[in-house]
């Protein structure tokens, strides 16, 4: 087991710079999730760490060892692919033991280790089967099993659950969390599923365009996003961000408004009131019933559409005039560069 240190890591494909200087410190045993928009370089960064892609610049350390020039198989990492990447011509048992066989481990030892991993993942009954005879969830478990068997210092996951249906995804998510608990290895996990990121991660790394926007615990990122991008990226539905000038109510929210260009309010923090009572008012243009509550699209004159989560069975009807209000400490303020301004009103929970 070991931690991971990235020091100004860059990656270019030809002339195109895909990773533009990433610094990251991952502690031993941490579960770190990379999130970011499609094409921001998550997979590339993971592949650079794994050694499947050469690094163009900077340093990668696994534990204390500089691994820039160490080949993938010797880095002590194992990877779980989105496509599972199971060898179609080998049985489950052979798939899981393949890496050990290549490394010339004794057949008896291979067998023991494969059986152990299979027991952990409840795969004992499938050892003789071929991948094509397994369901998606079982294949994913085999892929994870193959990673476990090689006993890596670091597990790398590239969107391992995105080919599974919603229910199975929730289930496998819990299994991966349990696996991390039990094994205690460092795990790095790429996803673009919000919930996966929030639930699994000790720390989330938000990437944009080949650079790190912010690193922090899910809680930190949610309550103290560094900038508008992070604020809107974390949380679902995404945060409403409007120009401060367009909303007269901003002044009522109070606090120091010097330099504030835009303000952000999360849909779940806005509450629906009588039109006359709220801080500002708008008209419901769409009301989406989700069971536990409703997602309202509210047109606020001059500011655009706000998303509002209304809890409970009661829902404002489409076309209704409503008022909206929010606790001052839940309002995020951003300056001209999109950076969040910490304010006295929102110090609550700051670490």
């Amino acid at each position: 087991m070991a931690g991971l240190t990235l020091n100004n890591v860059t990656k270019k494909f030809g002339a195109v710079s895909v990773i533009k200087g990433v610094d990251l410190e991952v502690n031993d045993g941490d579960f770190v999730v990379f999130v970011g928009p499609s094409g921001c370089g998550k997979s590339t960064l993971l592949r650079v760490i794994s050694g499947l892609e050469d690094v163009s610049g900077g340093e990668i350390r696994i534990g204390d060892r500089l691994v820039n020039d160490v080949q993938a198989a010797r880095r002590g990492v194992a990877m779980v692919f989105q496509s599972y990447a199971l060898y179609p011509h080998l049985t489950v048992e052979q798939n899981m033991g393949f890496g050990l066989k290549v490394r010339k481990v004794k057949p008896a030892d291979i067998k023991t280790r494969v059986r152990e991993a299979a027991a952990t993942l409840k795969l004992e009954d499938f050892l003789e089967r071929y991948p094509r005879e397994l369901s998606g969830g079982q294949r994913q478990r085999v892929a994870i099993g193959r990673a476990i068997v090689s006993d890596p210092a670091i597990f790398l996951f590239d969107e391992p659950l995105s080919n599974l249906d919603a229910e199975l995804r929730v289930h496998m998510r819990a299994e991966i969390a349990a696996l991390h608990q039990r094994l205690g290895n460092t795990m790095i996990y790429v996803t673009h599923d919000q919930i996966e990121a929030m639930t699994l991660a000790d720390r989330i790394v938000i990437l944009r365009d080949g650079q790190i926007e912010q690193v922090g615990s899910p809680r930190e990122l949610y309550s103290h996003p560094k900038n508008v991008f992070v604020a809107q990226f974390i949380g679902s539905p995404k945060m409403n961000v409007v120009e401060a000038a367009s909303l007269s109510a901003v002044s009522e929210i109070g606090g120091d408004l010097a330099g504030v260009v835009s303000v952000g309010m999360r849909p779940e923090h806005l509450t629906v009131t009588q039109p006359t009572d709220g801080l500002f008012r708008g008209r419901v243009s769409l009301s989406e019933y989700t069971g536990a509550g409703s997602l309202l699209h509210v047109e606020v004159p001059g500011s655009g559409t706000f998303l509002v989560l209304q809890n409970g069975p009661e829902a404002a009807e489409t076309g209704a005039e409503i008022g909206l209000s929010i606790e001052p400490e839940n309002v995020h303020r951003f300056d001209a560069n999109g950076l969040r301004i910490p304010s006295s009103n929102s110090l609550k929970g700051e670490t």
Partner: protein
Amino acid sequence: MTYRQQQRIKRICWVISLSIVAIPFVFPFLWMVSSGFKSANEIFGQPSLLPDVWRWRNFVEVFEYQPFARQYFNSIYIALVVTGLTLIVSSLAGYALARIRFAGSVLLVVFLLSALMVPEEVTIIPNFFLIRWLGLTDTHVPLILLPVFGPQGVVATFLMRQYFMALPKDLEDAGELDGLSRIGIWWRIALPLSRPALAAVAIITFLHSWNLFLEPLVFLSSLEKFTLPLALGNFTDPYGMPLWHLQLAATSLAVVPVIIVYVIAQRQIVESFAMTGVKG
């Protein structure tokens, strides 16, 4: 008419029309085999599908007339060696062209393919001078080297390259993480998954070598070095007229390995499609 009946009639119509279409292909074959059992006189007498008298002696005379067993063996071993070498060379080269990024790899493919446009008849003379200069005339070496590294090899390489390019890259990445070298990935992942392509290459290569005529004609001169296509044309009387009964008996014998290769390779193709099921 129920749907089932309709389907039945459709099927019957298909079988009948396909049978009719098959006649021109099957008939000469049957005629060849049956004439192999006839005497020369009977072949040109009253036409009949089956011989009046089965002349098994034809098949003995075939071997007495010239060193036919030796020639048969020549053809078999040359075709097998060519097929084996082509499989190795084309899958290695095809893999390199598909997966290894090196300067000019695409250009190289274009260059190889453009070489296919030159007809064999054009290259046979320079090839002859080359082979003679190497002192390899009247040996089997040119019959092995020319197909492997010539147009046939290029076609095989191209087929393999296309197939390799379509294999999931993730599998090879997984192999790399499992500790395989390039060669290891080729041998233990890419090849097992390419059985359909390998079988196809094996068939066309074997057949091409088996039917090769111009090259043996140009390069070989001694009877016991002959391959089958040359030997078959050699069953003649002292005046150079063909001995039809022997020629047809020998030709019937020459078809046997082709049928065997087809059966084996076809099963490989079918099986491996079921086997690999290359998907997520």
